């Protein structure tokens, strides 16, 4: 046996690390936050009040016996925690941050949906960070990931924490593929974290990473990613 046979990487992990590299090269810092979250950081602070139909947009796992605790439905909770800390420490924008982490949705699984998935959350706030910057950054990211021959387009959508909100599609190998949601951070979200929403503005995005992995490596199904099967580590 060779003593120093290197272990094999998980493809999703490769995608995650590449994503981090691309964004940190652009000046983003990395942030992290809990997977088991409270309602404030997962919903309320993100402009999704209790008893609002917008909460139905995400099938949520609630925790038994722990009132108001959820498995985070997105990494957007990290936005809130990051901005709250910033304000608490007396700092102000500009800043740019990404967070990659596991999220959970209480829905049936199939070849393209899992109950657990990775999201990459980006947040950039300044005095004049614009929607054109959002398009520029996302486009830069996917070109680095998948090659120059990709194209990005926006479609109107709705998320309570961004305004305008968009879904974006990527043209890759001749097909348009739905990649994720993004938008300009809703001024209320900034205010909820103690940031002046009339002075500062910025962008946020949160596409899933499994989709990116699947199209990059041409995988038929995302489920084997979580089976602990080393045949998956072939990249």
């Amino acid at each position, binding site marked *: 046996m060779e003593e120093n046979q290197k272990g094999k990487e998980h493809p999703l992990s490769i995608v995650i690390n590449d994503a981090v590299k691309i964004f940190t090269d652009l000046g983003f810092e990395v942030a992290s936050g809990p997977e088991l979250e409270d309602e404030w950081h997962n919903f309320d602070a993100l402009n999704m009040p209790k008893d609002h139909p917008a909460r139905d947009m995400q*099938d949520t796992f609630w925790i038994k016996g722990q009132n108001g605790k959820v498995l985070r439905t997105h990494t957007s909770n990290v936005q809130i925690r990051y901005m709250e800390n910033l304000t608490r420490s007396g700092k102000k924008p500009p800043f740019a941050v990404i967070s990659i982490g596991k999220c959970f949705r209480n829905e*049936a699984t199939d070849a393209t949906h899992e109950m657990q998935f990775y999201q990459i959350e980006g947040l950039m706030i*300044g005095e004049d960070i614009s929607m054109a910057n959002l398009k520029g950054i996302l486009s830069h990211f996917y070109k680095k990931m998948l090659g120059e021959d990709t194209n990005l387009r926006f479609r109107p959508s709705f998320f309570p924490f961004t305004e305008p909100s968009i879904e974006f599609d990527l043209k890759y190998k001749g097909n348009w593929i739905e990649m994720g949601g993004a938008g300009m951070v809703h001024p209320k979200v900034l205010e909820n974290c103690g940031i002046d929403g009339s002075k500062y503005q910025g962008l946020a995005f949160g596409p899933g990473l499994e989709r990116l992995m699947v199209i990059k490596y041409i995988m038929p199904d995302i489920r084997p990613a979580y089976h602990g099967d080393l045949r998956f580590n072939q990249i």
Partner: protein
Amino acid sequence: MLISYNWLQNYFEEKLPEPEKVAEEVTFHSFEVEEMDKVENDTIFDIKILPDRAHDCLSHWGVAKEISAIFDLEIKNKEYKTFTPKPTELKIEIQDNKCLRYMGRIVKNIKIGESPDWLKNKLNTIGQKSINNIIDAANFVMFDLGQPIHCFDLDKLESSKIIIRNGKIGEKITTLDKKEVNLDNSILIIADERDPLAIAGIKGGDKAEVDSNTKNIVIEVANFNPTTTRKTSKKIGISTDAVKRYENEITPELCEKVMNAITDMIYALAGGEMEEIVDIYPQKTEQRIVLISINYINKRLGSNFSKEEIESVWKKLNFGYKEKDKEFEIKIPFLRIDITGPHDLVEEVIRILGYNRIEEKLPKDGPWGNSLKDRPLINEIFYKMLWARNKLLTDGYSEIMTYVFRDKGEVEVLASASDKKFLRNNLSDGLKESIKLNQLNIPLLDMDEIKVFEIGTIFTKNGEEIHVAYGDKKEIKEINLDKFVNEKLSSEVHGYFSVEKFLVLGSTASQGTSEETSHSLTNSRPFKMWSLYPFITRDIAVWVPEGTAPEKLIEIYKSFGTELLIKEPKLFDSFTKIIDGKEKTSFAYRLVFQADDRTLTDEEINVIMTNITNKVLSLGFEVR
């Protein structure tokens, strides 16, 4: 929501663009058209109306207004019949402020009956069943204008008085579909002077049901508090098209237009004598005014739109506006509850002008400029995970990710779509299963032994924690991430560097990844899904004269192994011996066979092995 193309067409004099074109433009300017179905001579769109537009677009009228703005087509002016109504005895009393407006109208001597074919057909195309002309009219107007309507049989009421009040404990109502609901004082109901008639905004009761003998009716066009309607609906487990509209909030201002529309339609379908409308509207909604400047719009969008372009959007959306000191003062239509400030108007501008007008611009100055210098770029948790990962990979462990959901643990989720309701409280259990699985597959893996690791969150009664677990078939170790880094680090650098120092040193490199982990940016060898059928292994050992290259054997195995031989033959044993005075070498290879589409049989592999053996013998080698 299901929307009929022909129904939309009724809103316009001009011919609408083809359904495909409508679907495409609506998707890029308003909301996603998820499906399109051709039904007879109509096309039905399934449009995904998200909560921000559920105030004004859960209706054909709402979608027609979008189409009007997108294609710059004018909506026909709709005139309702004017009646000289008769005096009424109807009395309405609102006892609770969960009812925001209540309009009622008595219509006497109607002719109840079947609906005409055009109406049955229209309802049918959007999946609604026809009941009778009165109920159908109410349904039609709801899907047309977005406001729920209810009709009661006046003669079944205790008197001509309608009371909107909270339910009482012990009180019950049987709904139109014969479901008994226990009421309490959080549930708003519509009642006569004795009994509940309907659960406000949710479902009618059977007491005052309109049936084939009904002659006199009360039409209800009302508005209820969205939050309490939603809560009640969840509590009693009844969701209806009415709930969907009320819980998303619709403006009480809509009642008037809708009362006119439904009166008109009932008169046309069932005749009758119209009485005066009774309208209780305790607190009139104020029209919202929003100020917005061209500069604000362009700054948020990163665009350079002219005043004329922006003005064209207000016109297309039919927003009243005037200019005031370089700003637009926009009168927001009552139905557009979603527009609360200038940020919302920015979205209106860009979606109408088109998101394709947004350029791609990487920010030049800003967050990554000088102002960031005093901030740490390093995230300690992320960096530690990365370090632990690289350490384990270097030590020969392969990385796995397993499910967070398991069938036992300390933290449980409610109402899971899966049967695994617990969150893992360790990584070792998943690791153990992975090792077992991979151990069985070892001939497929190009590995001498199975060594795996996972870095991930575990959940205990005390909260969550990031763990590192690694091991092989003999032993699994699991440890907190911080401890792992501390231990491994100090043993490596003999305690000279603290973790803090290590992290500071780390920050001089790009956060994240070493060059070698980013190989995927350049290399994109496609992934190959494995066969789900079992594999068969066969070992073959052959004596060859000393000095014979083993490649010679490999060549034979590969060409006679057929496409069922899925791995490179693996040499697992070789030794040299003197036999009958000649030096000979034995090479033992393991061959792995598997098919993509079936379970292989021993017989077919036997045939392959016989072919291989014959070839080997024909070259004068000896099979052991």
